[in-house]
């Protein structure tokens, strides 16, 4: 049996992608282990809803598998491309949410321990934030999410969104202002009083 060390150790994502495209199942497993958590996290933060986030995550990974045979090393980093894919899939979902039913009903917790109540409040807040994002123009929602939810720097956001850094700054500033206005009337409801956030 082959007991050599993992030949993929330290391999860049793009190399794994090429290996996968050539039929290597181990590359697929390693890519999944690396990429799926990031993709799921980004989607969960933008959508505030676990089920929808999982759907987006699976869709995004499907795009990874599909693009593998055509992946060009010199075009973009896999991570940059994937941020864009997830952001677009999320704004698609948010657009549908705008025209559909608000998903803000959160089930009453069966247990009322402080931690369960706190968890429910966090879920409510995340869903409220996500619904507020859905009311922004999509480019603003993406810029704000990449900046404030993913913590990315403006130059990287500019690459992901294929715009200038100045445009990123403008979008994030306007988006953040708009979000603050949308959320303003909900402070008490979300457990914030005028002194400090809970």
């Amino acid at each position, binding site marked *: 049996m082959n007991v050599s060390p993992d030949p993929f150790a330290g391999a860049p994502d793009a190399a794994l992608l090429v290996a996968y495209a050539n039929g*290597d199942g181990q590359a697929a497993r390693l890519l999944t282990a690396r990429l799926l958590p990031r993709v799921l996290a980004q989607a969960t933060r933008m959508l505030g809803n676990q089920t929808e986030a999982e759907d987006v995550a699976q869709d995004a990974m499907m795009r990874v598998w599909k693009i593998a045979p055509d992946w060009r090393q010199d075009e973009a980093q896999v991570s940059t491309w994937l941020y864009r894919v997830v952001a677009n899939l999320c704004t698609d979902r948010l657009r549908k949410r705008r025209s559909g039913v608000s998903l803000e009903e959160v089930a009453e917790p069966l247990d009322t321990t402080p931690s369960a109540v706190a968890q429910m409040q966090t879920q409510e807040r995340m869903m409220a934030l996500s619904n507020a994002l859905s009311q922004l123009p999509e480019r603003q929602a993406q810029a704000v999410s990449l900046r404030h939810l993913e913590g990315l720097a403006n130059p990287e956001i500019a690459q992901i969104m294929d715009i200038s850094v100045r445009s990123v700054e403008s979008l994030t500033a306007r988006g953040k202002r708009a979000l603050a206005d949308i959320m303003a009337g909900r402070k008490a409801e979300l457990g914030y009083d005028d002194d400090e956030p809970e």
Partner: protein
Amino acid sequence: MTMTNPNDDMLDDLFAQAREVKPVPSDDLMARVLADADSMLPSSGVMSAAQTSLWARIMDAIGGWPAVSGLAAATVAGVWVGVAPPASVEDLTASFIGDEVSISLFSTDLMFDAGALGDG
């Protein structure tokens, strides 16, 4: 620099909470994603199991990815993918390992006639 606008404070707090969200993919989600990967694998089986392990041994011989300097990772993979007939591998191995080779990326169809390699 930040205006302590209460609305901004709330928003900043919401952002901070959102950044803390780090869900772990469930086993079920992992399984679905891997099943998708399987279903999207090229059916032509570009690399057989034997060639896959051969590639792994070649990478071992090179010294792994950190040792592959001067070559884009995809270029390396593309080179080895094109080496379809096992008979010619050993000759090519000798000529590629240890050299800084500038190789243009192959077309998206990574399967190409091994005979064409002789011209390159």
